C-alpha cells in the first residue's frame, strides 16, 4: 500500500473541510421559514444555523453505512481465505465507523434538541444509526476481549450486521418524523442551492474516512511486520 495514500486523503479531507465550512456559512440558504406547531419539516425552518448540521450529519451517516458494508464484505473474504490482510481492513473500517457513528448520533441529537426540543427521539434514521453503532461497538469489544478467537467472532458479527441492515431499515420504516432532505425526502431531490455543497461535504468526509482507514490498516500491517521480525530474531537467538 503506497505510503502516500494516507497523507493524500488527509490533505484532500483537510482542504475539503476548510472549503465546506466556508461555503456552508456563506453560500447555502439559511433556514428561516417555519410553520409553528407543524410536525412536517419543510425545507427551511427557524433552525437557522442549526440546520447546517445537516451538511455534516448526513455524510457521516453515509460513511458509517459504507463502513458496515466494507467490514461485512471483507469479513466474508477473510473467513473464506483466512488471509489477515482482509481482516485488517474489516477491523479498520469498523473502528472508524464507531467514530463516525458517534458523530452521527451526537449531531443528530443536537438537531433533535434544536428542532423538537428533545435530546433524543426514536425516529427512523437515528434509531437505525444507533443499532448499527451498537453492533460496531460490540465488534470492537469482542476484538479486544475474546482473545485469539476474536478475529473469527467479530468477522461473523460483521457479516450478520451487514445482512441485518435491510431488516433494520424495514423495521424502523413505520412512523417517520425525520426531517425530509429535499422535496421527496430523498437526497437526490435536494434543492439545487444545497446540492453542490452537500456532495462536496460527502466527498470531503469520504476522503477523511479513507485517510483514517488507510492509516489504521497500515499500522496493523506494520504491527504484524514488527512481530514477524521479532520472531525471526528470537529464532536466530539474537534477541533474548
Amino acid at each position, binding site marked *: 500500500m503506497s505510503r502516500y495514500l494516507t497523507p493524500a486523503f488527509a490533505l484532500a479531507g483537510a482542504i475539503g473541510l476548510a472549503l465546506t465550512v466556508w461555503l456552508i456559512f456563506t453560500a447555502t440558504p439559511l433556514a428561516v421559514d417555519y410553520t409553528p406547531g407543524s410536525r412536517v419539516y419543510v425545507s427551511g425552518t427557524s433552525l437557522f444555523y442549526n440546520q447546517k448540521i445537516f451538511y455534516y450529519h448526513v455524510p457521516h451517516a453515509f460513511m458509517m453505512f459504507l463502513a458496515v458494508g466494507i467490514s461485512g464484505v471483507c469479513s466474508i473474504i477473510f473467513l473464506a481465505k*483466512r*488471509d*489477515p490482510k482482509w481482516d485488517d481492513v474489516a477491523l479498520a473500517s469498523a473502528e472508524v465507523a464507531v467514530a463516525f457513528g458517534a458523530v452521527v448520533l451526537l449531531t443528530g441529537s443536537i438537531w433533535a434538541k434544536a428542532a423538537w426540543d428533545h435530546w433524543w427521539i426514536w425516529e427512523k434514521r437515528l434509531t437505525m444509526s444507533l443499532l448499527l453503532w451498537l453492533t460496531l461497538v460490540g465488534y470492537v469489544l469482542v476484538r479486544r476481549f475474546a*482473545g*485469539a478467537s*476474536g*478475529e473469527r467472532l467479530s468477522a461473523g458479527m460483521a457479516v450478520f450486521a451487514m445482512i441485518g441492515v435491510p431488516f433494520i431499515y424495514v423495521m424502523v420504516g413505520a412512523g417517520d418524523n425525520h426531517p425530509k432532505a429535499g422535496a421527496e425526502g430523498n437526497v437526490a431531490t435536494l434543492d439545487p442551492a444545497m446540492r453542490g455543497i452537500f456532495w462536496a461535504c460527502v466527498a470531503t468526509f469520504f476522503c477523511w474516512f479513507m485517510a483514517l482507514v488507510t492509516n489504521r490498516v497500515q499500522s496493523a500491517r506494520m504491527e504484524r511486520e514488527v*512481530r*514477524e521480525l521479532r*520472531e525471526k530474531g*528470537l*529464532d536466530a537467538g539474537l534477541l533474548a
Partner: protein
Amino acid sequence: MTALDRVKITKVAKRYGNERALANVSLELGARSMCALLGHNGAGKTTLLGLLSTLVSPNDGRITYHSNNAEVHGEAVRREIGLLAHSSLCYGELTARENLSLFAGLYSVDGTAATIEAVLDRVGLDARARDRAARTYSRGMLQRLSLARALLTKPSLLLLDEPFTGLDRGGALALGAELGTLRDAGAIVVVVTHDLEAIADRTDHVAILRRGQLVFEDRGAYDYEQLKGLYHRHAN
C-alpha cells in the same frame, strides 16, 4: 473405507491472534508407523495435531491426505481419523454403551450391541460400569472408554495428545502396547507426549518442535535413553 496411507504436511504456518504457533513446518507421515511428536509446552505440538485432525485451519501451507496415491478430502478424511486426548471426548451423562452407540451412528459404522461389547472388552472396561453414566468413572476408566470410542471406528490415522497423563505405569505401558499393535496393523499413529518411557522402543519416527519450528526429524527406532538425549539436545 479408504484407509489413509500417507499424510503430507507442507510448509504449514499458524498464528493465534498475535502469537505464532507454527512456522514453516513440513513433515510426511506414512502407514505402519508411529511418530513421536516432542517438544516443550508451547512448541506447537497441539496445534500441529489440531491441524492434522482438520479442526484447525492453517494460515499458510497445506495438509494433504492420501490413500492408494489418490488424495482424500473432507468427510472421507475425518472418517479415518481417531483422536485420543487428555479429555475423554465422551458425554458424561450417557453410559459407555450409549456413548459408543452415538458415535457408531455418527461414523456410520457397525453399532450393534455385540460390536460395542467386543470393543469394551478389548479395552478392558469393567462390565458393571458399562451401564453407568460416564461421569461416575475413574480417570482410568474414562481413558478406556475414550480408547474404545477411538477404536470403534477403526481409524487409519490415530492422533494422540498426551494420552498417558493420569495413567499409572501399568496403564501407560498397556496403552503403549496397544498403540504398537495398531501401528503393526497398518495405522499411521502420531503421539504427542512427555512420557518418553511409554513410547520408547515403539516409535519409528521422531519429530521435535521448538518455538513452532521443526528442529529435528528422523526415522528409526529409539530407546528411552536415546529419546531423552534427543529431547534435551533439540527441544531447548
